[in-house]
């Protein structure tokens, strides 16, 4: 069962849709970017809509073209990357840690 919204012309997506998706993607967009994105995504989605005409009722999905089972390595410890090398590119360090803004504030 397709979502209700699928039945209207999905190719025209709203400003709210753009803002919702940007939020899911953790992507800040300026007002101009939202405007442009609304037009461009609508055009691209309209082109993509052509897939609706293809009969895939008896076709399975392909996620990967190679037939590999789960690939397991031997459970053997190998030397980890040195901490200094792992931290060297960090934007903000608080040795020996990465520093990020507070995630859980006290009292919340």
């Amino acid at each position, binding site marked *: 069962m397709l979502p209700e919204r699928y039945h209207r012309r999905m190719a025209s997506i709203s400003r709210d849709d753009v803002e919702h*998706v940007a939020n*899911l993607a953790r*992507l800040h967009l300026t007002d101009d970017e939202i405007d442009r994105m609304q037009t461009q995504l609508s055009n691209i989605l309209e082109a993509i809509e052509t*897939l609706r005409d293809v009969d895939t009722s008896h076709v*399975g999905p392909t996620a990967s073209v190679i037939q590999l089972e789960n690939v397991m390595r031997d459970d053997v410890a190998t030397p980890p990357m040195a901490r200094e090398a792992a931290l060297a590119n960090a934007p903000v360090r608080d040795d020996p840690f990465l520093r990020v803004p507070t995630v859980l504030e006290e009292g919340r």
Partner: protein
Amino acid sequence: MSELPLADRTVTEVADALRRGETSSRALTEACLARIERDAERLNTFLSIDADAALAAADAADAALATDGAEGPAARPLLGVPYALKDIFVTRALDAEGDALPGGLPTTAGSFILEGYRSPYASAAQEALERAGAVLLGKTNCDEFAMGSSNENSAYGPVRNPWNEETVPGGSSGGSSAAVAAGEAYFALGTDTGGSIRQPASLTGTVGIKPTYGRVSRFGMIAFASSLDQAGPFTRSVRDAAVVLGAIAGHDPRDATSVDTPVPDYVAALTGDVRGLRLGVPREYFVEGMEPGVESAVRAAVDALRELGAETVDVSLPSTDRGLATYYIIAPAEASANLARYDGVRFGLSAGADELWENYTRTRGAGFGPEVKRRIMLGTYALSAGYYDAYYVKAQQVRTLIKAEFDEVLATVDAILAPTSPNVAFRIGDKVDDPLAMYLNDACTLPVNIAGLPGISVPCGLSDGLPVGLQVIGRAFDEEMVLRVADAYERAAGFSDLRPPTAGA
């Protein structure tokens, strides 16, 4: 050797000259560095070079050539040969203590979000070419995160096509294609997710091969669309492509999708003989809107192969025109997941906001360019609740159909002949405001990624003074056939000495 200037010769020619002591790796490296310096502002091909490190590697190669004698270099055909890596391959730039490694090169993926990033480890490609003794010159410009067909999406400015500086070199591996065309490197590696090796090879008159998915390790290749990405070389001859592919192919336990199947001797496959082969020409690849000069050059190449003794047959791949839509769901969906790692915490740009959520969104908003944002949005939309089945699963189902059609045709023919790109190099700026027009550039290449097959682009003449590429597509893990057909064509067609008018000594 040919009469071309030293920097414009093939890997095979300079490797032979090295073995005979007629030149040195230092001389080759200096010739490339001189070209890079001369053309830096004009072409914008390289994002980073370290001349001192390259010359030191060249001197080490020269010493190995002197002591190895005739046997050693034969076993290592790339020993002493200068090359470039697309800046999507990470290159070791830190030592175990996290200190900058002398000669280590940064890795940007053409993105502002990774400006100045120094990798603590090497890509499998860099390691393989180090083992082969090749000399790394530097990292080439590319579309941001390999998303683009013109190299105009690089955060570090567009690359210009050495054939005509007003035009694009193709993308996303545009710096690698232009560097090889312009005599700045004897070979270069690129990556191909929907055509990013073959299309720029076509637009710059170089040879570019995308191997079978799983043939070359993706370890240390910055991920765009993990079920489609493959690495491969740009070269000035098919034989060179066979040599370089042999050096980078093979199983790598660090890439779980790398397939453990033996690497054949690709050079030995170049028999020059296509008599008795059946080559399919899919009518759907001669697409509407294709430039007449491209169509006539490709049709002439098909005729040439027939004259060489191959049987050419009309075949049909009916879902070809669904390739674009399928690709522009699957690739952005995978990209939106892969690019979630750029969060301003462990590496790369950070907006420095006081609140975590705000820091994610501001960092990504400031660090990604317009095309990357478009694809993240498209992919996130296609994967979002309520649309997943309608878009993503649907595209994966059509992927099954596209692959099945290739399998069916390739059961009856040895390889498929097609145009690489429906057009020659277009003018910089012409398509930047129309994403769909840009996407159509890859209409003939992206079905091959969807099916995971090997494909090569080999020059087949000029149209309006700009190069045209013939694409040869083969069965999975049958790079030998693809190379054999392309090589036989190249020998007969005589375009292998084609160099841009701006090359020269």
